């Protein structure tokens, strides 16, 4: 057997398991946060609250604890409501105190740290191990041997060696804490040394390889954290069970039967997930330690003894079931890994899947943390958590992919098809979403088909990453590939982070059943930008507007940081980065000639498609005031659509002829096709009016490059942003195609540098030019309608409706009503009680009127009454009061007796509107 070697590029990047441990730790920590929050809700928060249990402000704001998420979002998005909610939450006792959570998390971390330091002491306590000294080894030969091995393994600081004489297995174990490590030799190992010195050497070198790979700290830190968490976990489980009692309060959705059951399931799922993921990481580390030992000179034969595949089917089944739970790979796997180290670096399915699940659960849970979002706001938390999650996921999967690419020769097929890696990642994301219990109101999501979007996000991004890393690893050999691959992974992080944030803040609502688009509402919104649009509302205009709206919001959202330009940048990276490999001199990069040829054909296709669109649009809209606006909307939407389609066809053609880098080839072709389509579209728009039946907006022939340019720039964010991603998703049809041998190398492209530079510069210029048009108005609602205060979703039950009004009264409504009416009474009493001197009016009446004005302003800043009729009466009362108070102030300032008299009358009139709102609210108080 030959000694396996690890290429230099693969070394130093490690097994990529450290980010996996970090991801697991993040999962444990964030789950602890969720658990503590639930506990604190019972332990600390509830007693300080009143009957409404700490959700009073939300009720007053119009939320419905038993209603659906969308309605609640809508209630909060009404003008002024968020601000009112903020000031309501600032009332004492309203915001959940954050200190219990801080203290608990602090204790958790401290306990884990203490355990981390105590564990090694406990394991080497007296009565457990004995020092390897002259009592066991009188001649000093054994000590000399192991210290010699320390040098062989390349460790600068020798660990401490101890012996566990009672352990009869021929093994060893390494443990310790930061900087102080102990190798514990089992009694069985000392016994075996006599007959099998090579085996002894292999075992010790394996343990020393663990030290060299820095496995000890991270492993035991994770162990410590997990054990502490297991102490806390039962508390959360008991809490869930407590809520299962029939007597438990069931008013609030968060505490009902189903969600408690789901909570139990979610907890069980989490425990299993952490166990399996941890075991998997440990197995990988074992294989790497084996390889390290062999590289230090251990005899691979030493692993033979343990490799006995089970013969009976039952034993094989048992091993298949127990395998994923074990911390060590079985002997057969270890031996296979040593005979062919590329096996160790093949992309495994499980870790990629686990990463998908974990990253989604971590980010989703972080977003649902009340303590954090109440203070920081949901949008920054979403952006930050998505960025962190994307970074960790990219580090984990990227490391695996890179290792695999580096260890797969350019001539042989990658062990795992790239699209398979993507599929497992996407499947992990979907599983995580389902486990998170966020998209479900019942046991299943309302519209599960939209989970496909999440699957596509995962599949496409990781498929691209796999092929792209592979491409760079073979274009630039050895260490030179490192910066390129790091750049690739940065791009992956950016792209995934953008889409992930979009999914958190927008996409997941689609699954929950939120309407994606309301065409008529979008038309009303667009009418504010393209006046006259509503007048021309006929035929497919609503469909066009809806398509435009969805395309403009796919992957981006006004509440997520990256925005349309982040997506544009992400999309451009997807195809510009791989395109630069075409400049590689050794001919391993993308086939530029084929790409340009296919893109040119795609460009011709685009011209034909644009011509058809223009022909259809020529007579599509009847003459009238809204014609230009409607045509512009039609034209730009369908131009983007057909250019995307043409790009997909061209990309598919080029990608299908590639054997290994289908997606990068396809995307590069699609990108260049889009650019040539943009060029065609620029010419067509600039000379609109000269094309006869192909004219759209104008009939007068002339060259208007300004208009053409702004048109092209305006289409750029949709085309090169979501458009590229749509093409990538469409290219998935290539994934199923059988692999074909790479066609014989064509003659190379002349002046490749020039071609690539022109393409890159064009994208940069277009992106910069599109900056302004991309800033679009977009309303926060899916329907595209600006909400008014009256748009309160109907309560799910009369009780909730009543509670909302009561909460409104309790947190300020009652006080405002009493204050204003009380001052109005005082006013009337003052004014109608003679004698009323001028001094009285200036000193007492004027300040009173000012107070009323101020109170009315405060009342307007408060929540709208969560009852339609009461809300109308309340506004009427406030209007009356404000008018009377303003008249009063103006009259006093102007010394106008007649005006003052009319102010008095107005003030008396408020009695009636006060009576009305008072009577309206009375039934709620009964």
């Amino acid at each position, binding site marked *: 057997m030959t000694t396996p070697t690890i290429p230099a590029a693969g070394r130093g990047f490690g097994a990529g398991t450290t980010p996996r441990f970090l991801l697991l730790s993040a999962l444990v920590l964030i789950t602890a946060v969720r658990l503590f929050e639930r506990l604190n809700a019972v332990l600390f928060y509830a007693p300080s609250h009143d009957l409404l249990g700490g959700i009073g402000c939300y009720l007053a704001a119009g939320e419905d604890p038993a209603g659906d998420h969308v309605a609640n979002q809508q209630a909060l998005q009404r003008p002024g409501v968020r601000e009112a909610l903020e000031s309501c939450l600032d009332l004492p006792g309203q915001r959940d105190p954050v200190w219990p959570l801080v203290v608990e998390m602090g204790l958790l971390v401290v306990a884990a740290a203490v355990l981390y330091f105590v564990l090694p002491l406990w394991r080497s306590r007296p*009565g*457990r191990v*004995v020092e390897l000294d002259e*009592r*066991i*080894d*009188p*001649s000093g*030969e*054994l000590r000399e041997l192991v210290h010699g091995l320390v040098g062989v393994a390349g460790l600068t600081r020798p660990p401490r060696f101890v*012996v*566990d*004489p*009672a*352990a*009869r*297995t*021929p*093994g*060893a*174990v*390494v*443990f310790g804490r930061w900087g102080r490590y102990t190798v514990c030799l*089992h*009694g*069985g190992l*000392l*016994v*075996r040394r*006599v*007959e099998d010195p090579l085996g002894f050497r292999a*075992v010790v070198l*394996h*343990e020393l390889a*663990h030290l060299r790979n820095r*496995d*000890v700290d991270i*492993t*035991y830190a994770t*162990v410590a954290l997990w054990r502490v968490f297991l102490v806390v976990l039962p508390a959360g489980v008991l809490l869930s069970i407590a809520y299962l009692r029939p007597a438990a309060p069931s008013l609030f959705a968060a505490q009902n039967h189903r969600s408690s059951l789901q909570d139990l399931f979610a907890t069980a799922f989490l425990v299993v997930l952490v166990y399996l993921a941890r075991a998997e990481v*440990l197995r990988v*580390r*074992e294989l790497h*330690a084996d390889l390290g030992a062999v590289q230090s000179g251990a005899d691979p034969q030493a692993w033979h003894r*343990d490799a006995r595949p089970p013969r009976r089917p039952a034993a094989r089944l048992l091993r298949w079931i127990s395998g994923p739970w*074990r*911390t*060590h*790979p079985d002997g057969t796997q270890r031996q296979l890994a040593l005979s062919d180290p590329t096996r160790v670096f093949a992309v495994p399915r499980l870790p990629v899947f686990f990463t998908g699940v974990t990253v989604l659960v971590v980010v989703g849970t972080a977003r649902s943390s009340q303590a954090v979002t109440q203070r920081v706001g949901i949008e920054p938390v979403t952006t930050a958590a998505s960025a962190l999650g994307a970074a960790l996921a990219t580090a984990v999967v990227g490391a695996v992919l890179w290792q695999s690419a580096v260890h797969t020769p350019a001539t042989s097929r990658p062990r795992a098809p790239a699209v398979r890696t993507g599929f497992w990642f996407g499947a992990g994301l979907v599983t995580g979403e389902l486990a998170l219990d966020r998209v479900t109101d019942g046991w299943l999501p309302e519209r599960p088909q939209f989970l496909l979007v999440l699957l596509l996000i995962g599949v496409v991004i990781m498929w691209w990453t796999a092929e792209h890393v592979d491409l760079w690893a073979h274009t630039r050999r050895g260490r030179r590939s490192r910066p390129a691959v790091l750049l690739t992974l940065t791009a992956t992080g950016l792209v995934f982070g953008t889409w992930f944030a979009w999914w958190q803040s927008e996409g997941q609502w689609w699954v929950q059943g939120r309407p994606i688009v309301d065409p008529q509402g979008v038309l009303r919104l667009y009418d504010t930008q393209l006046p006259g649009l509503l007048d021309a509302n006929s035929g497919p205009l609503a469909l066009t507007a809806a398509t435009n709206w969805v395309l403009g919001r796919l992957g981006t959202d006004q509440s997520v940081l990256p925005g349309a330009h982040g997506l544009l940048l992400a999309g451009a990276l997807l195809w510009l980065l791989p395109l630069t490999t075409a400049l590689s001199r050794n001919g391993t990069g993308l086939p530029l000639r084929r790409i340009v040829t296919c893109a040119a054909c795609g460009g011709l296709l685009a011209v034909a498609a644009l011509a058809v669109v223009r022909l259809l649009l020529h007579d599509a809209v009847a003459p009238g005031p809204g014609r230009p606006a409607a045509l512009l909307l039609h034209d730009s939407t369908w131009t983007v659509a057909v250019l995307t389609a043409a790009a997909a066809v061209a990309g598919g053609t080029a990608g299908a002829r590639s054997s290994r880098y289908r997606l990068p080839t396809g995307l590069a072709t699609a990108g260049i096709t889009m650019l040539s389509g943009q060029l065609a579209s620029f010419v067509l728009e600039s000379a609109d009016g000269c094309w006869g039946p192909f004219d759209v907006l104008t009939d007068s022939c002339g060259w208007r490059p300004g208009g053409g340019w702004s048109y092209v720039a305006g289409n750029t964010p949709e085309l090169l942003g979501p458009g590229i991603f749509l093409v990538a998703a469409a290219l998935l049809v290539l994934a199923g195609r059988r692999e074909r041998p790479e066609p014989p190398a064509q003659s190379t492209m002349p002046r490749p540098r020039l071609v690539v530079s022109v393409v890159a510069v064009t994208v940069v210029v277009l992106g910069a030019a599109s900056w302004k048009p991309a800033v679009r108005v977009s309303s926060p609602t899916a329907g595209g309608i600006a909400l008014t205060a009256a748009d309160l979703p109907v309560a799910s039950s009369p009780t909730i409706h009543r509670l909302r009004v009561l909460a409104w009264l309790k947190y300020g409504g009652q006080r405002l009503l009493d204050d204003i009416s009380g001052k109005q009474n005082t006013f009337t009493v003052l004014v109608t009680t003679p004698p009323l001197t001028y001094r009285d009016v200036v000193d007492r009446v004027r300040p009173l009127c000012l107070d009323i004005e101020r109170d009315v302003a405060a009342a307007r800043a408060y929540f709208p009454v969560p009852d339609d009729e009461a809300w109308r009466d309340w506004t009427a009362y406030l209007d009356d009061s404000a008018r009377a108070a303003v008249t009063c102030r103006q009259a006093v300032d102007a010394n106008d007796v007649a005006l003052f008299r009319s102010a008095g009358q107005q003030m008396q009139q408020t009695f009636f509107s006060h009576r009305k709102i008072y009577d309206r609210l009375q039934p709620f108080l009964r």
Partner: protein
Amino acid sequence: MRDVVRAVIADVAPEELPVVDALRQFDDETAVSRLGRGGARREPLGFGLEDAVYLVTPVLWIALDQSVRKTADRAVDGFPHSVRKLFRRASRRRPEPLAVPELTVHQVADIRQRVLELAATSGLSPERAEALADQLAVRLLIPVTPVEDERPASAE
């Protein structure tokens, strides 16, 4: 007793001498309970082999310990062993190593039988078990001479 164990191991399974020397640093109770518990668990960052490779020492030590205790309990004061253990725990004294009392031929035969039984359950081959039991019987019947380091050169 420890000297008996060491002497017998030196004769029967000299490769296990380092283990005996290491175990001698524990008190009897710890050594027996650790040996009784068997092999190591699978733990993270271990090497991961599960087969027990030495068997003679545990069989010998445990069998001898049990038999000697039984004899001593009966002979000395009739106090059950567990009660004495409690007292010792309370006084936190490191116990003296167990000494092998004078044994009758019958008692030695019993001990020999016990070794064979234990060996059968722990997977030691019958030939090695016989050799071990015989060697032990010889050691117990012939008056003990202090055993010096008899480790053969191969282990050095």
